């Protein structure tokens, strides 16, 4: 038996199929992951993401610290509550984790990191924080619910506290507000509008059931994976890891090269890679024929070999899609080795789907 989130009993009650995910007993689906996927694209779905790690970073030099720790630059955050997506690199430029950091106040940032990387992340961040006298706290007793889809915000406003709903209504994308113990960020991992709500564990079941009664469908990790893949969002440990730089993972856009004198960890290594123009890139693939692309299938591009990092079926497109790390090449086609046969796939630039619409 693994760790259980405060919503575990609610999942069982809603007939979830429970699987192990990084040591956590999490819902894979509640009957049909494809129906859950469509519900998020067309209306609203909710995900229990309480297994993710919330960290509070405090100290007078917390901005300086994060400008050292992260490949993206928190100095870009001008408004309180604004969020930033970033990679955290090691000295070799490999990705330790990808994360979201929220600018709460001049001496306070809130960070959300992945569940499976919890221990190494906390150890690394705590070690790096010492030189800046920044404290790293992991608040206990929290839950996190992601409500996603074109109707997600409206439905959430119906059930959250009125004062919070008012603040949330005027929230811009990638911003967050706090009211009492509840934190609402207009962020997500699906390519749809919506919220990620952090709240005390004791209130999680009530919110979950209230959202359910407002017509928000519970969705499992299965739908979460196909939604994020369609949305062109990387999964840590699958699309990148400590041996892969953000430049080889389609994440160059998250690296803040300016100002040039900001010496973030891993900068030297990826500057070198950037100068040599790299050798590998992460691309999107679409299979025109039947079958489903799978992780680790081999990809052939003009005789050179690459690999699918995330492959699945896109319910929105009705075709198999994937991310693949391949040798740099301008060609638009490749072959994928599937079940002993080589089949043709198109090379495209993700995302595949955004805000309910195909963009390929």
């Amino acid at each position, binding site marked *: 038996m693994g760790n259980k989130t405060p919503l575990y009993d609610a999942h069982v009650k809603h007939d979830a199929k429970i699987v192990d995910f990084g040591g956590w007993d999490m819902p894979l689906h509640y009957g049909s*992951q494809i129906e859950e996927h469509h519900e998020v694209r067309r209306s609203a779905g909710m995900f229990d993401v309480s297994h993710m790690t919330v960290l509070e970073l405090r100290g007078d030099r917390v901005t300086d610290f994060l400008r050292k720790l992260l490949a993206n630059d928190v100095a870009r955050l001008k408004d309180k509550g604004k969020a930033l997506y970033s990679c955290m690199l090691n000295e070799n430029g490999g990705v330790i984790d990808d994360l979201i950091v929220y600018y709460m106040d001049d001496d306070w940032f809130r960070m959300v990191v992945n569940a499976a990387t919890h221990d190494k992340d906390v150890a690394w961040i705590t070690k790096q924080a010492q030189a800046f006298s920044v404290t790293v706290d992991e608040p206990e007793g929290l839950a996190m619910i992601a409500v996603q889809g074109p109707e997600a915000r409206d439905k959430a406003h119906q059930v959250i506290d009125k004062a919070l709903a008012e603040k949330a209504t005027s929230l811009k994308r990638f911003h967050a507000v706090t009211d009492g113990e509840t934190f609402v960020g207009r962020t997500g991992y699906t390519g749809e509008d919506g919220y990620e709500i952090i709240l005390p564990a004791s209130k999680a079941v009530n919110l979950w059931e209230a959202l359910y009664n407002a017509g928000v469908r519970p969705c499992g990790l299965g739908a979460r994976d196909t939604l994020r893949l369609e949305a062109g969002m990387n999964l840590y440990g699958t699309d990148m890891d400590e041996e892969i730089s953000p430049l080889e993972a389609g994440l160059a856009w998250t690296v803040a090269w300016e100002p040039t004198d900001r010496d973030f960890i891993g900068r030297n290594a990826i500057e070198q890679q950037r100068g040599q123009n790299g050798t590998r890139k992460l691309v999107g693939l679409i299979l025109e024929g039947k079958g*489903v692309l799978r992780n680790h299938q081999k990809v052939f591009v003009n005789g050179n070999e690459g690999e699918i990092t995330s492959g699945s079926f896109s319910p929105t497109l009705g075709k198999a899609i994937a991310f693949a790390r391949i040798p740099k090449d301008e060609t638009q086609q490749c072959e994928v080795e599937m079940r002993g046969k080589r089949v043709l796939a198109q090379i495209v630039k993700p995302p595949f789907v955004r805000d309910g619409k195909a963009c390929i």
Partner: protein
Amino acid sequence: MSNVPADLKYTKSHEWIQDLGDGTVNIGITDHAQTLLGDLVFVELPEVDSEVSAGDECAVVESVKAASDVYSPLSGTVIAVNEVLADTPETINQDAYGDGWLIKLKLSDANELTDLLDANAYEEVAAEDH
């Protein structure tokens, strides 16, 4: 626990067989198999009039999670395939023993029917790999 109708026959590899009593059978995958696979997204079926032998790969069912070969439990000639599965493979998830059938076979050796599992024996198989 999965649904295992008493009037069907089964295999260890999770196919079901309905003996139509006239030398023909319908074949599909069990409710247990579709539950393990999750949402089905592609189904590959054999050509009508093709010959299959017991134990041959005769179809592929592919879900969001995995591709799985379907083995013909019996020998014979394929006389029909379930065409609707090309557009709506989820029919198997919804009705594995009815509208989600895969192929209809005209048997070349009806004696092979005696080698199949009954519902009780299949329930034990399904419980083991749960």
